[in-house]
């Protein structure tokens, strides 16, 4: 019987921006037919802080702390990325020791970030316990960040031309102990979820994206490698000390949630391997290049009031003038935990960037969500968001 008075339409559900499983302030507008998603539209921009624009008014040195806030879960890698770009712009050669320290720190940040990922991803799928196990290990790493930089999250530790301060043996011992134990702990997480039938059912064959599609969508990092594409900035365009350490790039096969999960789990072990090599090969020497960007403080800071100090901070323009002849724009990228994090800087003859653009992997990955979600069930949205591992701070900048 046909009843023309009854109108049938999809149920529109607004998932986010305040939702426990959208990892921040992502808003998804879902059109549901029963439990099946017909349409998924991601809305972003709830965490826009204008970092790119703000950096146009700050000198290169002052911009550095801003990059902490791009991806707040792996601020160390953001700092390194920014420094690599500015160093390329100005032709600053980083001392060996600083390169190794930076590599070590970047890998620590990668472990840190992946720990948050496994914690939240597992929690989204319903395994609560993994969350607390991962947070326990992350705590140790954050303590180590505090030891070297004084901050746990927004570290601002690398500098253009090196790192801020040297590391001591106490730190190295602590890190070495952690790295020795860490692969065992990863196994511990895996025993909880890896061969769990429910976990496999929830992740295998869900959110499939083929290699070609993944490349077309511009995916990078573990999200791309899960589809079987061998691409890693650390291997293809090595920066810092990545040329001098051995490591493998884990690659998946099917491009589903499970393969992306496997890639990241294997990356834990590779990161641990890199850190171990960095500790063993760590050379002696300076930690900051001679021509590194420095802040010239006023002669006697005590006599000048605060307002003047702020205006006095500038970098030595002479250095920039020298290199400005060679470059006017630069793009440099690093392998952030979430993918390729690129900094594109256009400079003019001032001590500030004319324009800075951040190529954020999360932004690109958020765009692929409709592709992954449409046609699947509501519960798969959560698994997909977890598996592409987006941080909205990085997405919106």
């Amino acid at each position, binding site marked *: 019987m046909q009843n023309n008075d009854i109108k049938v339409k999809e*149920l529109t559900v607004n998932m986010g921006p305040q939702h426990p499983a959208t990892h921040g302030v992502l808003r998804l507008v879902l059109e549901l037919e029963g439990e099946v998603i017909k349409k998924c539209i991601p809305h972003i921009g709830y965490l826009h802080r204008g970092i790119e624009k703000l950096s146009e008014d700050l000198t290169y040195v002052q911009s550095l702390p801003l990059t902490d806030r791009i991806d707040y879960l792996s601020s160390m890698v953001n700092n390194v990325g920014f420094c690599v770009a500015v160093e390329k712009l100005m032709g600053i050669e980083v001392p060996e020791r600083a390169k190794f320290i930076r590599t070590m720190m970047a890998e620590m940040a990668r472990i840190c970030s992946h720990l948050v990922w496994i914690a939240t991803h597992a929690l*989204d799928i*319903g395994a609560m*316990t993994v969350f607390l196990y991962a947070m*326990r290990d992350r705590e140790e790493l954050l303590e180590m960040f505090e030891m070297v930089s004084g901050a746990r999250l927004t570290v601002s530790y690398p500098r253009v031309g090196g790192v801020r301060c040297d590391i001591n043996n106490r730190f190295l011992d602590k890190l070495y102990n952690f790295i020795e134990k860490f692969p065992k702990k990863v196994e511990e997480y895996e025993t909880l*979820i890896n061969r769990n039938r429910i976990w496999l*059912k*929830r992740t295998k064959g869900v959110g499939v994206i083929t290699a070609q599609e993944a490349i077309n969508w511009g995916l990078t990092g573990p999200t791309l490698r899960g589809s079987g594409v061998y691409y890693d900035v650390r291997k293809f365009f090595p920066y810092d000390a990545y040329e001098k350490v051995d490591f493998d790039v884990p690659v998946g096969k099917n491009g589903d949630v499970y393969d992306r999960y496997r890639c990241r789990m294997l990356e834990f072990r590779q990161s641990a391997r890199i850190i171990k090599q960095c500790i063993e090969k760590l050379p002696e020497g300076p930690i900051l290049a001679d021509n590194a960007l420095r802040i010239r403080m006023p002669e006697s800071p005590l006599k000048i009031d605060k307002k003047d100090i702020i205006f006095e901070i500038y970098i030595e323009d002479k250095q920039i003038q020298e290199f400005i002849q060679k470059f006017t724009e630069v793009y440099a990228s690093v392998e952030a935990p979430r993918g390729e994090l690129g900094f594109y800087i256009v400079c003019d003859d001032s001590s500030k960037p004319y324009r800075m653009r951040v190529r954020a992997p999360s932004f690109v990955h958020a765009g692929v969500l409709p592709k992954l979600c449409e046609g699947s069930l*509501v519960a798969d949205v959560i698994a997909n968001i977890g598996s592409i591992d987006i941080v909205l701070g990085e997405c919106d900048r």
Partner: protein
Amino acid sequence: MDTLYIIAITIIKTAVYFGILMLHVAYATYAERKVIGHIQLRLGPMVVGPHGILQPIADVIKLLLKEDIVPAKVDKAIFKAAPIISLTAALSTFAVIPVDKNWIIADINVGLLYVIGIAGIGTYGIIFSGWASNSKYAFLGGLRSAAQMVSYEVALGLSLVGVILMAESFNLTEIVNKQTEYWYGMFLFPQIIAYFVFVVAMLAETNRLPFDLPEAETELVAGYFVEYSGIRFSLFYLAEYLAMFCMSALATICFWGGWTAPPILIKTFPILEFVPGFVWFLIKVYFHIFLFFWLRGTLPRYRYDQLMAIGWKVLIPLALINIVVTSIVKYYY
């Protein structure tokens, strides 16, 4: 006069039973937080009283004092009735559950049917709350719950048929008495398949992990009770824990021999004869309650379609096979 006497006794019995039950429920929340805390390398509640022992009382006071919010666009009558339906259904099941020999409020002949029937009414509370809340999340949660509970009730009921066949009775006391005739004193071993089906269905029936889809925190935020607050929310919470107790008690009575100890155990250690029946009962019930907590600390959550597939394609056939096998064995021996 006689009738009045019986009514008075029943009211007193009910009141005592109710009080003790509520205490157990309150401390089950505490136990859950402690157990999961220790599974997850935490301590759980530690602040209120020594080792947080007064935490449930603090929680109750907090929930009672909270503002009772009824959103503007809800269907007010049904919105208010839903938690009461859930709670009443959950509480009523305990009327026929024997805790010890003759420790029972109503020893009726169709006890088992009564429990399953009344537990089914609890679903209405959930559907009503999902519908009346006028919220999409609550609506989805309510619908999921309706589908889940209806399909798992079938499996739950069928798994108990084997027990009924063996006991030749629906009376819960009778079922327990029948089990003492075996030297191991429980239906667990001959009905192991039924027990497996029952435990899985019991998890689904009480909306606990790995089947807590109606209230899947991460997808539906809280599911059907997302719009509820204060005391109304706590009624749902209470109903959930009561359902856990009810199902654990049912598992204990139907498969673990209720308040009786296995005769073989008594024979080997005669001193155990002096352990009162309700202690055995509580030990067995709390084992099942612990099972709920343990699974919650360990397992991820199933997806909606997978949950339905397990219910219809695995559990119900298993239960049916069990019935057939039990009947054949029963007929020839």
